[in-house]
């Protein structure tokens, strides 16, 4: 009786461990972007793109050949056409807002307008 109970408890614990693991695992697998160019947006409005060289679970990133997209001086959330080169950089994970692959990212005309 008692041993059966403890086994049950053990199985239960294992299940909880697995659940915990699943929960702690990041939903973002950055390895697929290694050596590829990604676009990163930061808290405060800065944007950059570069080749992903490395990362950690806290979303700290190492980017190479990095370009920063400069912004309208009057509006920190509006991109200007201008860019500047930053080279090899470390991005602080806590300030990363968005990550997307550069490959397939394109500026498009208003896709909603036809339905207006």
């Amino acid at each position, binding site marked *: 009786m008692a041993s059966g109970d403890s086994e049950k408890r053990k199985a239960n614990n294992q299940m909880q461990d697995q659940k915990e693991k699943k929960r702690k695992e990041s939903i973002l697998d950055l390895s697929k972007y290694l050596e590829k160019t990604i676009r990163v947006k930061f808290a405060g409005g800065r944007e950059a793109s570069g080749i992903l060289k490395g990362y950690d679970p806290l979303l700290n990133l190492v980017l190479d050949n990095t370009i920063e997209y400069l912004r309208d001086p*009057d*509006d*920190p*959330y509006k991109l200007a056409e201008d860019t500047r080169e930053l080279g090899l950089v470390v991005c602080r994970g806590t300030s990363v807002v968005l990550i997307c692959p550069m490959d397939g990212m394109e500026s498009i005309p208003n896709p909603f307008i036809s339905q207006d």
Partner: protein
Amino acid sequence: MNKIELEGTAHLLDELDKKLMVLLRDGRTLIGYLRSVDQFANLVLHKTIERIHVGKEYGDIPRGIFIVRGENVVLLGEIDIDREDKLPLTEISVDDVLDAQRKEQELHIEKQRLISKALKERGLQMNADLVQDDLY
């Protein structure tokens, strides 16, 4: 036990399934039925409309279901169903209210521009755009 755990949100739980008005930090007003909350005061609003007020007129845009992150909420309150038809305001069409709102915002932006220009001339700088976004 439950009571202690949920102390912070206890009052929100009282509002479940009631029709609420929610004001967001960006100044927008949502009206919908509160279906769920959690310990962060994240909200689920159902059958939501966005209500745009300009002066004594307003317009409603149907928006459906929202999951609002709690930290973006300024205030919320129950709508008195019996009295909501007797608002001292007039409802106008969505197009009209959007038009009116655009005019209001253009005026506001122009005013901010003048203020910030005047400040700059006096050697001060205020980033109008960062301030403007965070109304509260």
